[in-house]
């Protein structure tokens, strides 16, 4: 929908300042703020992976948490059973890559069967993915020998990741690298085809594209990115439980992309910052009134408010402001030139 391929000079300067600020941040802030920002970075990638589906493919996946949670479980199980070393972390990354692409393939094969688009296929897709996510969650809950069931799995991490400040930098690098990769994907010809499918699947098919294949690729890329963010999330918390596989976890990603703006990719970063900061602030208020412990009440309210009043999110707001300014400038120059000629 909205895609700025070339970043303007002003934007470059802004991003540079932002990067410097983020690099300095852990040295001037408290430990809890540093952890909050690490969380924001990781959740941003998770939400971005979701935005590829929701924003660029128009596909509502209610089982997306299965990639995220499984990534966290994979790294946890490996660290717990084989050893908490850096090579094991790399093995976890490779296994997550394989697992996510296979899971996405299976999910896609089931979901993308009903062709033609329209309301019916969106609905069937949402329900099927919801049920698939539930299967994975059930499996994790039942498979107590490996996953410790509903109690959750806590594990030790390699000493390299133990320092919170260092982990903050890893998370920041992870965010930058993944953003560049996903941006590249969206700007690639494959990404363009995905967008054309979102706009009109039938037409894309008539143009000779095997739409099912492209949708599968999109789902796989999204699943892998989500799995990676799950690995990072697991390492950050040193703990995994089935909470990460629930529908609620999928809804987190959905809310973040909604708040930030769907179909913008970068919106996920803004949304993740907003949602996570609001959440931690609300928890700080709980001494004022216990109602603030009920994060989900505010979470749900945010959903409804965003859908009704701000359907395009923060990025949509930003783009509408810049577009207005641009058209104003254009109008002015037109007036000036017409004034001169007359």
């Amino acid at each position, binding site marked *: 929908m909205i895609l700025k391929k070339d970043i303007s000079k002003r934007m470059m300067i802004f991003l540079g300042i932002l990067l410097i600020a983020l690099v300095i941040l852990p040295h001037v802030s408290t430990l809890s703020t540093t952890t909050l920002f690490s969380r924001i970075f990781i959740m941003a990638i998770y939400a971005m992976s979701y935005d590829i589906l*929701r924003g660029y493919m*128009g596909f*509502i996946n209610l089982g997306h948490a299965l990639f995220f949670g499984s990534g966290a479980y994979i790294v946890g199980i490996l660290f717990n059973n084989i050893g908490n070393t850096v090579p094991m972390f790399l093995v976890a990354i490779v296994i997550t890559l394989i697992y996510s692409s296979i899971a996405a393939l299976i999910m896609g094969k*089931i979901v993308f*069967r*009903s062709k033609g688009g*329209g*309301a*019916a296929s*969106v*609905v*069937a897709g*949402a*329900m*099927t993915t*919801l*049920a*698939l996510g*539930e*299967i994975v969650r*059930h499996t994790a809950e*039942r498979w107590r020998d490996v996953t410790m069931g509903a109690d959750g799995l806590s594990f030790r991490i390699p000493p390299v990741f133990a320092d919170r400040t260092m982990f903050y930098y890893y998370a920041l690098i992870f965010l930058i690298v993944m953003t560049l990769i996903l941006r590249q994907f969206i700007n690639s010809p494959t990404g363009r085809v995905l967008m054309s499918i979102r706009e009109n699947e039938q037409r894309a098919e008539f143009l000779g594209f095997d739409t099912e294949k492209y949708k599968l690729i999109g789902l796989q890329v999204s699943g892998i990115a989500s799995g990676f963010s799950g690995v990072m999330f697991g390492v950050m918390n040193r703990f995994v439980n089935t909470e990460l596989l629930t*529908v*609620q976890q999928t*809804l987190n990603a*959905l809310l973040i992309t*909604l708040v930030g703006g769907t179909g913008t990719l970068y919106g996920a970063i803004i949304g993740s910052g907003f949602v996570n900061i609001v959440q931690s602030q609300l928890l700080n208020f709980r001494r004022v009134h216990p*109602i603030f412990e*009920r994060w*989900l*009440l505010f*979470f*749900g*309210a*945010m*959903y*409804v408010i965003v*859908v*009704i009043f701000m*359907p395009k999110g923060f990025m949509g707001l930003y783009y509408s402001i810049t577009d207005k300014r641009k058209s104003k400038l254009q109008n002015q120059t037109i007036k000036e030139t017409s004034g001169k000629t007359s």
Partner: protein
Amino acid sequence: MNIFVTLAINGLAQGALLFLLASGLSIILGLMGVVNFTHGTLFIWGGYVYIWVYTLTESFVFAILAAVVVTFIMGMFFERFFVSRVYGNVPAQILITLGLQVIFTELVRVIWGATPLSIGRPDFLAGAWDIGGVVIVHYRIFLIAVGLFIAVGIHLLLNKTKIGMIVRAGVQRPDMVRALGININTYFTMVFAGGAALAGLAGALYAPLVGSMTSTAGMHNQVLAFIVVVVGGMGSFIGSAGGSVLLGLMGSGVAWFAPGLATVANVGLMAIVLAFKPSGLFGLAVKK
């Protein structure tokens, strides 16, 4: 042999409950094209209101009525203030109903606490018959009877009354119905609230069956109801009845022979139906 009779009765009772949930969902989807994710929360509200009123008044009938009335009003509220703003926009509908679902499920936890509330069956339904070694629980028979009664009732309402005629016409061509001078928005609200009341009834009847009510039961049953809708065919009343019975019987069979596979079996059935007959087993041949 005995076990099969017991399983069949269990399955039919489960199917009756599912039918109450799924029929509302299916008609709402068919008439308004709304994917309603508030159904699960209406279900647990029905259950909690039932338990609350039942422990206060000790009256089964009164508690059921209270659950139905409360969820009916909630349904009207949801439709009037939220869902009606996003007609025609499927993703927005999913999101807004999901948001309402999250809020109202959390409200249940605020009001009644997160721990499960236990509830017994009313005295006149508590017993069980023992016929030649087959144990038949009264309450399950009661559920099957209620399910049949509601099914026949909805069938008559849809096929023999003017209201039903307008609703059926609305499922096929809402714009045409509007062109004939009928204010279809009122019908939208009524159908949505009616579906909500059916979900509340299902929750109220579910609590005594299981013996307790938790705030997580909503999502689980809603997923089942959605599977029924997909399997039976969206917007088809017969489909949701047939799908409910099929899923109920399959659920009780799987629960007995392979308890770990319950969810897998349901999703597997849905995947097969979607693969070979995407419009559902009893799907209408209507394209919207």
